């Protein structure tokens, strides 16, 4: 408890420090690492949006790439046919993502658990199929190339194009993440955790659980589409690959590895997966295997995600000092964070 309050005390300083580092990154990093960092920011938003479903609401979606792709194609189509400016295009992308979620939500929310997983996956594959076959509009498997990269006007000529888009991404992702933080800490976010832990209980307390899940699904869709729109600008291209379920699976892995249901976990998972992909693949062909080993080790050693690593080390050190067995993970139910969240919900009601 003591250690936790210390880390809570340092949290604002840590966030400020991170922000400063991110702001000066373009002056320190060469072009290639900076573009990797841009991608990390975009996928952090993607993973955090998925975390609203997977981590907070406990809805195992394997179709989140549908929203990512919808955002991407919204941006791509608007750029191709209308030449819409980026801020408006990104806004429309978000609206498109929310709209897709509002349309599919009533169907997917009828299912639970594994069925939810497969239905979200199936709908994503259907969307993939539509995009793939509707060549005339979407370009089929060629996708839509040549999306112009937007630039921040007040930085034009002062920094490189890569740095300019990096700052644009940083601003958009920063604002989005701040709003996600606000959402998950709001009574609404706490109620979602309550639904994850015990939906019937929350229903019994009078919470409109279905509506809450529906709103969460729509929100996650909107944020996911925003990430997809940014990614389309980043690549200058949007194609069916950005709807592919492989991307949804990767997002799921990012969230779980980092720590589902924790705020910063998905960011850590994203950094890990992308760095593994780009850095490890540079010096060994066996990076797929390494990724697999990392998955397994994380599940076995850090089942609550890498974000819990400091706590885990502290636990193990305490254990070594006392030479007492680790507290059983299932033991006193009252002390798990999720139970506490439920209690907070109950107190508020």
């Amino acid at each position, binding site marked *: 408890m003591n250690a936790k309050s210390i880390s809570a005390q340092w949290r604002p300083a840590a966030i400020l420090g991170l922000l400063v580092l991110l702001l000066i990154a373009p002056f320190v990093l060469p072009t290639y690492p900076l573009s990797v960092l841009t991608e990390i920011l975009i996928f952090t938003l993607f993973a955090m949006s998925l975390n609203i479903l997977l981590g907070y609401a406990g809805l195992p979606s394997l179709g989140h790439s549908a929203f990512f792709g919808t955002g991407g194609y919204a941006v791509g189509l608007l750029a191709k046919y209308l030449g819409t400016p980026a801020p408006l295009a990104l806004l429309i992308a978000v609206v498109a993502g929310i709209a897709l979620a509002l349309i599919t939500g009533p169907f997917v929310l009828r299912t639970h658990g*594994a069925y939810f997983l497969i239905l979200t996956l199936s709908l994503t594959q259907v969307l993939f199929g539509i995009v793939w076959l509707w060549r005339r509009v979407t370009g089929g498997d060629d996708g839509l190339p040549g999306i112009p990269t937007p630039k921040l006007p007040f930085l034009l000529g002062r920094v490189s194009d890569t740095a300019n888009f990096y700052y644009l991404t940083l601003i958009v992702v920063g604002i989005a993440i701040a709003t996600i933080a606000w959402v998950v800490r709001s009574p609404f976010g706490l109620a979602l955790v309550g639904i994850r832990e015990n939906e019937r209980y929350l229903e019994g307390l009078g919470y409109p659980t279905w509506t809450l899940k529906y709103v969460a699904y729509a929100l996650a869709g909107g944020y996911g589409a925003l990430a997809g729109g940014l990614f389309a600008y980043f690549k200058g291209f949007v194609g069916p690959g950005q709807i592919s379920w492989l991307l949804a699976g990767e997002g799921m892995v990012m969230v779980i590895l980092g720590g589902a249901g924790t705020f910063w976990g998905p960011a850590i998972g994203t950094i890990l997966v992308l760095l593994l992909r780009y850095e490890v693949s540079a010096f060994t062909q066996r990076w797929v295997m390494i990724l697999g080993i990392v*998955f397994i080790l994380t599940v076995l050693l850090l089942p609550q995600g890498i974000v819990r690593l400091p706590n885990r080390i502290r636990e193990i050190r305490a254990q070594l000092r006392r030479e007492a067995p680790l507290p059983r993970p299932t033991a006193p139910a009252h002390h798990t964070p999720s139970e506490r969240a439920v209690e907070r919900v109950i107190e508020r009601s």
Partner: protein
Amino acid sequence: MPVNTASLVIGLSYASLLFLVSVGLSVVFGLMRFVNLATGSLYLIGGYIGWSVARSTGNFFLALIAGALAALVVGVLIERGFLQRLHRKELLQVCLTLGVAYIVQDVTRWIWGGDPLRLRPPELLRGSMELFGSVVPIYRVALIGIGALLAVLVWYLLERTKWGAYVRAGVDDLEMVQCLGINARRVFAIVFSLGALLCGLGGALGTPVTGVAPGTDIQLQLMALIVVVLGGLGSVTGAIVASIVVALVDTIVRTFWPEASFFAVWALAALVLIVRPQGLLGRAA
């Protein structure tokens, strides 16, 4: 008429393979709510080991046994090593079995390379025969026979034996079954191992038809997930029916509109789950 006997045979032989891959997954899913995304990898292992054994010994039936046993060994390792500690933690199961799938895919690519490998059927089952006025490959017909036989066997085991009753009871209410003094963990371990065995057998049997390559595992895994969910978790009859439906839809669309074949099955899955959120033969949750 494009839907002739030939495409029916192709579809049903594919259904046999799908059934072998998905029945274990379905029962394990239903019994322990365990999500195994390494099912396709077990098929891959069965296929590769079968291919190698057939090449070195020239005996197809030895290849089948070796493929099935190899998948069984890996399945037991997964079950003993990891699964026991991940009960009811779906997200961790997804992550862990995905990790296993990655490793298996990379190791097999390392050993057998990235090119698709195909096995010739045994002497006895080569060539084609005439069936209801169409010429069809004998091996495909044999596959249908083997699939049907195994389906009946599994159905009998689960629906007509005392041991099968334990499993079905476990699907319905695991806690209650444990209260009755039945070792549900052992039942689960046996079901999981049998499922792995059938997967490996499917892989070895399927090598002359689908071939094995990196990617076969993903394809089979996705198909198996569709079959399991369409059929309803934990239902053997459901797995049989869904295997046939999925394989036939896939084959028929493949002949009519090849580009759309991959999506047709997903559209079917989406449609079924929208209308019946618990699958074709699943009980309402």
